[in-house]
């Protein structure tokens, strides 16, 4: 564990780059779900469908010679259109229908990917598709430029964490505030570590252009999507979404076109998950239908609930915790029990953590406790 925190060994750095990328990809994916459930109250149990469409569209189009940026854009738009389709068929009905239709759709999409071999190569999977920046050999100047951009992102994160740390210390009326302040401080230190790791990886770009390049663009993408979402949910548009989450009849009575807003939320969440699908594919560098089992959807739910539904920063934090947990329990594989049993054990422990969290902090780590104590 100390290796993760201090070592500059290239192997450890490489693994941390993998972790940061994973956090970013899953964070992006979960941000889409958070818009739909956390802000709008749409029960989407088939979020992975959007990711599947994004991943397959991006990889297959780029294999056919479409430039990567265009391929991702088309993939994301197709994912949004899938949201449109699901929404049109169910959003006028009661909300539990959406839950059923979404989980059905995600399995349907996966089974199409498995069986329509002429299009998706079926169980053989899509392989050796182009990866972003894999042939990019930046000069020192360019690399320093990239590090500056990354530093702006990490710097902003640190600034926000420091602000939160100071604010909680000032308020420190209860021990929770102190814990929160200390946690923010520790997170800040962790962010510095990840900043250093990212900077080293980018400076040493040639060591692995595809993974380092992916790190660079996924961080930028998450930053942009996060900023854009924050802008939206704090606007009057976001206020309408929250109103729909609370009581859609009231929203209707106040002249809001509830159906249109739900559709927008579902489509935008799908669009974001479609982008996440492209990154998911690039990180794996091969795409199989088995990558898109319903489990992936529930990983996003775990991430969102851990961090606090209805909170974008919480969702990203949830993704971080989820992957930190995965990394720290990797050593369990050395135990003298079968690998699949270890896998099951790790998931069981996550379930246990969620249960404890639901009892002690049902609003999630960054959620607002006051909101839960309110009656309808």
């Amino acid at each position: 564990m100390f290796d993760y925190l201090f070592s500059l060994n290239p192997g450890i750095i490489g693994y941390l780059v993998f972790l940061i990328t994973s956090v970013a990809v899953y964070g992006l994916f979960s941000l889409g779900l958070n818009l739909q459930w956390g802000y709008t109250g749409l029960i989407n149990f088939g979020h992975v469908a959007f990711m599947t469409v994004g991943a397959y569209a991006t990889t297959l189009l780029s294999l056919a010679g479409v430039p990567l940026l265009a391929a991702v854009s088309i993939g994301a738009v197709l994912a949004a259109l899938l949201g449109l389709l699901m929404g049109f068929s169910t959003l006028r009905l009661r909300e539990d229908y959406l839950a059923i239709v979404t989980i059905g759709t995600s399995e349907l999409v996966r089974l199409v990917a498995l069986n329509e071999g002429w299009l998706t190569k079926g169980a053989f999977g899509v392989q050796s598709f182009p990866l972003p920046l894999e042939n990019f050999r930046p000069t020192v100047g360019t690399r320093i430029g990239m590090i500056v951009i990354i530093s702006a992102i990490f710097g902003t994160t640190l600034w926000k964490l420091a602000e939160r740390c100071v604010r909680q210390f000032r308020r420190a009326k209860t021990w929770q505030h102190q814990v929160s302040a200390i946690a923010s401080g520790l997170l800040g230190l962790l962010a510095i570590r990840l900043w250093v790791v990212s900077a080293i990886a980018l400076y040493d770009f040639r060591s692995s252009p595809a993974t380092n390049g992916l790190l660079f663009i996924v961080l930028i993408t998450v930053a942009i999507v996060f900023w854009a979402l924050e802008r939206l949910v704090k606007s009057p548009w976001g206020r309408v979404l929250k109103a729909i989450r609370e009581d859609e009849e009231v929203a209707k009575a106040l002249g809001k076109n509830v159906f249109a807003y739900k559709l927008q939320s579902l489509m935008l969440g799908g669009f974001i998950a479609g982008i996440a699908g492209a990154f998911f594919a690039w990180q794996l560098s091969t795409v199989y239908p088995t990558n898109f089992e319903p489990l992936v959807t529930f990983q996003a739910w775990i991430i969102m609930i851990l961090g606090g539904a209805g909170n974008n920063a919480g969702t990203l934090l949830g993704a971080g915790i989820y992957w930190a947990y995965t990394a720290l329990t990797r050593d369990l594989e050395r135990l003298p029990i079968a690998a699949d049993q270890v896998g099951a054990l790790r998931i069981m422990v996550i379930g246990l953590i969620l249960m404890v969290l639901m009892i002690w902090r049902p609003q999630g780590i960054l959620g607002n406790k006051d909101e839960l104590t309110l009656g309808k």
Partner: protein
Amino acid sequence: MTNPSPPLMPVLSATGLMKSFGGILAVNDASIEVTQGSITGLIGPNGAGKTTVFNLLSNFIQPDRGRVLFDGEPIERLPPYQIAQRGMTRTFQVARVLSRLSVMDNMLLAAQQQTGEKFWSPWFLPGRIAKEENAARDRAVEILESVGLAAKANDYAGALSGGQRKLLEIARALMTRPKLVLLDEPAAGVNPTLIHQICEYITYWNRQGLTFLVIEHNMDVIMSLCDRVWVLAEGTNLAEGTPAQVQSDPKVLEAYLGS
């Protein structure tokens, strides 16, 4: 209360409303008319179909048959949100506030034609949104002050008491700049002092030119507020007239007291 000289123009008129649920005819050929600038009452014994009529007028439930004219235009086929946008705002029998939004956000939500509610605008028109928000906030504070909720503006709406929720719901309805407000039992579950206050607010806003249609069980409220009263029983019109006329109508007494 003195009757103002009756204006001629009906702002809302519904004729021949029908609605059945399963085999039960809840509303059977009901009609109602609300004149511009009036406070009109809708009364009737429990189960008479008053709330259903409200739902039919605002199209929260689609009528099987019937015609609803608002400002001279048919609205019975419009979705509820469009009816609200045209200036007919309803409240609910049990006050429905958005618990996990602040009182202020409840109010701001109700403002109509907000640029910031369009999908693209938060990214591209932040200046215009901020300006509109400030204007809406000023108006919201003004309305909240008039009902004594200004001090609660930053609290969660879910933390309000039952009576305060009623007030917030009415205040929120006013925030939409309506022409006509449908109030579903504004005095239900509210203490006598607050009932008195609510009545005063309604009269005050009525003098400012706002038209009200009120469902109420509390006869004192109806008698003191309304210019005209429509009586519903078993889903159909029973009587119509001034409060005094209705009160002395033997059919109404029979419906209320049983034969």
